[in-house]
């Protein structure tokens, strides 16, 4: 926990919860993280994919792992974003709850940005992830209100 606090000490949210008996518990959470900051330097042999999810009421409680070519890169929650450097070539970005959504990008090396937007569609038991590739101008606008997701490696599901 100490490491996590250290990683986001300026972005810790304290949440007080009342419990029967008069005592309360205080939950320290660092899920509220730094606001969007554009990645300025992209390695010459990589392309940059921003995976983001604008804050939304519908499906807001649903979160999911995002994979690139079957490797988990982040856990995408409501209002979060994650920058990922991908190797050139085809990159399949996917997410799964009760159903899978995926898009494939042709990643080019260098200063290239790709915006993959996560959403939630209706499902039987739980909302289904829905990934969309957004035009750069739309993606750049929408991601501005998102908070960065720390790079803790999520457990693979």
């Amino acid at each position: 926990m100490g490491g996590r606090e250290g990683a986001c000490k300026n972005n810790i949210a304290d949440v007080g919860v009342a419990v029967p008996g008069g005592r309360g518990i205080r939950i320290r959470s660092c899920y509220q993280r730094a606001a969007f900051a554009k990645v300025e330097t992209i390695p010459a042999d990589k392309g940059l994919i921003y995976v983001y999810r604008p804050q939304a009421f519908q499906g807001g409680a649903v979160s999911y792992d995002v994979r690139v070519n079957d490797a988990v890169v982040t856990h995408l929650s409501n209002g979060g974003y994650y920058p990922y450097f991908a190797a050139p070539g085809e990159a399949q970005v996917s997410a799964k709850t009760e159903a899978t959504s995926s898009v494939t990008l042709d990643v080019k090396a260098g200063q290239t940005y790709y915006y993959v937007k996560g959403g939630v569609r209706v499902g039987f038991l739980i909302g289904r992830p829905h990934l969309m590739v957004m035009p750069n101008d739309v993606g750049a606008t929408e991601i501005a209100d998102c908070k960065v997701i720390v790079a803790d490696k999520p457990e693979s599901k």
Partner: protein
Amino acid sequence: MKLGTVGRLVAGGWLALLVAGCATEMHVRPEVGPIPAGAVSISANVVFDGNRDYLPRNLQQNTSNPAGITVYYRYEAAYGTKDLGAAALYDPFTIFGLPTGKDIPTIYAELRIQRGPQILKACQSACQVVQRSNLWTNLTQTELRRDGLLAVRDNIESQLAQGQEFLASLVLQH
């Protein structure tokens, strides 16, 4: 008996709706005929940096081609989507297959045959795939993109094969 008939009609209606909802539409332009028998292939320097599964199959890589022909092939995929959002969430008929959204990837491919800077032939193809998503279907946009890329590849193969005389003039092989 009468109720049974009505019940069958309703069930049939829902089934038709479900099947219609699952259908994937694909529109490829331009319209071309099938590849004629004995079509030739182009042996040339092929410049292409994408997935070779999507490269027209009547192109053969030959970097030392004496005719000095270079073939450039490229494609682009754009994704479009339409989400019904809360309308689908509160619509009880989504359980019967009414759409919850629509995915519309569009693929564009272009091929140029050049000798030096001179363009000898150019052809393009575009494909739009429309998939209405519902609770019963789960075709991903990756799969739709692949279908679209294969469709434009086939279309450009056909376009190339239509001009047999032209191809034959370029040092070709059967």
